[in-house]
């Protein structure tokens, strides 16, 4: 595939605190707060931005269509080009890549991408039902209307295929909730241990309450710029080195049984008897990573990626993502967490700020939230934004952000680099 474009930089980011309920500020004000944070941080004016991309997942949560346009005028972007991107849980990740394309193509010099969701406007079980409308409404939704069940089917098979355990999954929850203790933007910081997770109510076997992400109200914003614009507005821009994306069948039942698309640090012999992806792995995640790595010139992600913001809607999904991203071989994801490798002091820290599990999952905002965290990490600025330096990773030259829609129907991987 031909791939040549202008360099794209991220020059600022902003967030609101993610919360279970925020009835005091609506989605427009949430976005405004996130955008103002980003503008303040770099001393830019909203008039300096050429256009915007808005990201929100569901029209059902608010009962409001074209909410992106409503937000756009609220933040002072009226008159500028703007579009909405939607793609399930990957909404924010896709919108971030769309903003990248606006700059890479030369269409804009500066682009604002913002995401939001106010999920508290429906009750939790209605919310689950609405999310499940993001599965085939002929064949999947009427079976139970529950996304957790689909991920649980995948987790069960991952355990069968590779011997992954519920205890290993619990370790992911412990890591992410404990990390969030140091993140003032996080919704659910919790000092918990493995037993707390294992003893939390079973939702959909093998997944328990503390294996599952939150529903949130919140917003996130990122400002992207061309090289010239980055130089004039920022003294510490972060290079968006490459973007990768892929897709897979919406229905889990349609997944194929073939060969693993290999990364340069793997060989065919690694997976002699593995039928891939089946329902144990996310092929779209692997293909998105492969594309992003190839474009970034990354030969060995295990060595070259310093940290990652992975899509941990479920603890099982974070373990699966270690493998999809090539941080370890397929089947070794459980061991990867057991050995502490994704911990804050491990060799590839993952979801240092709490991830979707504990920082929160305001769906449209999530992928952009990940970008903002990665941006602050790459700048070495975590202490400035969090008021403490506990979550700043030591090596912060190359980071990736990753998101899913559905059970991996769309996935995005973006490589970001300190300059």
């Amino acid at each position, binding site marked *: 595939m031909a791939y040549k474009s202008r360099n794209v930089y991220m020059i600022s980011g902003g967030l609101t605190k993610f919360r279970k309920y925020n*009835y*005091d500020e609506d989605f427009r004000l949430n976005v405004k707060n996130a955008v103002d944070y980003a503008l303040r941080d770099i001393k830019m004016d909203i008039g300096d931005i050429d256009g915007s991309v808005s990201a929100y997942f569901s029209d059902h949560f608010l*009962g409001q269509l074209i909410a992106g346009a409503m937000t756009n005028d609220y933040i002072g972007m009226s008159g500028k080009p703007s579009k909405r991107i939607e793609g399930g849980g990957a909404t924010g990740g896709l919108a971030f890549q769309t903003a990248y394309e606006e700059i890479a193509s030369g269409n804009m010099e500066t682009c604002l991408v913002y995401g939001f969701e106010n999920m508290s406007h429906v*009750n939790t*079980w*209605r919310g*689950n*039902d*609405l*999310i*499940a409308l993001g599965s085939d*409404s*002929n*064949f*999947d939704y*009427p*079976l*139970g*209307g*529950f996304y*957790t*069940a689909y991920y*649980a*089917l*995948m*987790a*069960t*098979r991952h355990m*069968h295929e590779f011997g992954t355990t519920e205890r290993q999954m619990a370790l992911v929850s412990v890591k992410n909730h404990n990390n969030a203790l140091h993140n003032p933007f996080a919704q659910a910081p919790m000092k918990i241990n493995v037993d707390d997770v294992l003893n939390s*109510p*079973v*939702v*959909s*076997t*093998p*997944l328990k309450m503390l294996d599952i992400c939150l529903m949130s109200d919140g917003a996130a914003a990122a400002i992207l710029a061309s090289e010239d614009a980055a130089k004039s507005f920022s003294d510490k821009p972060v290079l968006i080195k490459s973007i990768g994306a892929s897709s897979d*069948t919406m*229905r*889990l*039942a*349609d*997944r*194929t*049984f073939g060969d693993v698309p290999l990364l340069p640090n793997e060989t065919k012999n690694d997976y002699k008897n593995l039928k891939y992806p*089946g*329902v144990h792995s996310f092929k779209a995640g692997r293909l998105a990573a492969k594309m992003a790595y190839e474009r970034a010139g990354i030969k060995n992600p295990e060595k070259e990626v310093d940290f990652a913001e992975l899509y941990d809607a479920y603890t099982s999904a974070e373990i699966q993502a270690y493998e999809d991203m090539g941080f370890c071989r397929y089947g070794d994801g459980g061991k990867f967490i057991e050995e502490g490798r994704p911990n804050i002091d491990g060799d590839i820290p993952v979801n240092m700020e709490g991830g979707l599990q504990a920082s929160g999952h305001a769906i449209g905002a999530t992928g952009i939230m990940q970008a903002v965290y990665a941006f602050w990490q790459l700048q070495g600025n975590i202490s400035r934004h969090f008021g403490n330096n506990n979550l700043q990773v030591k090596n912060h030259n190359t980071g990736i952000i990753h998101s899913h829609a559905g059970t991996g129907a769309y996935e995005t991987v973006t490589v970001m680099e300190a300059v």
Partner: protein
Amino acid sequence: MDRYTRVMKTDPLVKEFDYNIEYIHSYAQDSKFFTSLGMGILLGSECKKCNYRYGTYRKYCMFCGSETDDINLPLTGKIHSFTTCYYSGENFINETPYTLILVEFEGIDSLFMSRLVNKENKNVYIGMPVRAKFRRLQKFDVNDVYFVPA
């Protein structure tokens, strides 16, 4: 809309906004799958060009785009994966706990998602033989077929 107004909070002002949609849901090209369930037939699809046999009905092949042929799936299979749900989306919460399975069929390349009805949702395992059963009174949704231990 002029039913009643339920105010939940006054500062900020929060009220109930009830917006219901009754969809006219057409199964369109998938109709035959659903009507066949009433005759005790579980349809899958086969692409003559790719020789790929689908465990979930679809009118067009996802590899080559050709129109597929209908095939009768075996009424017995094995559990490929499973989960028992103790919570669910709002419309199904009264049906919990229930067990969802992915079924693999001999000679068929892809899977079928369904409910497993068995005693207390217990003793389910990967590889467990299951057989299809059909609702006597059709409701014209995918639950018109379900599986039980074979």
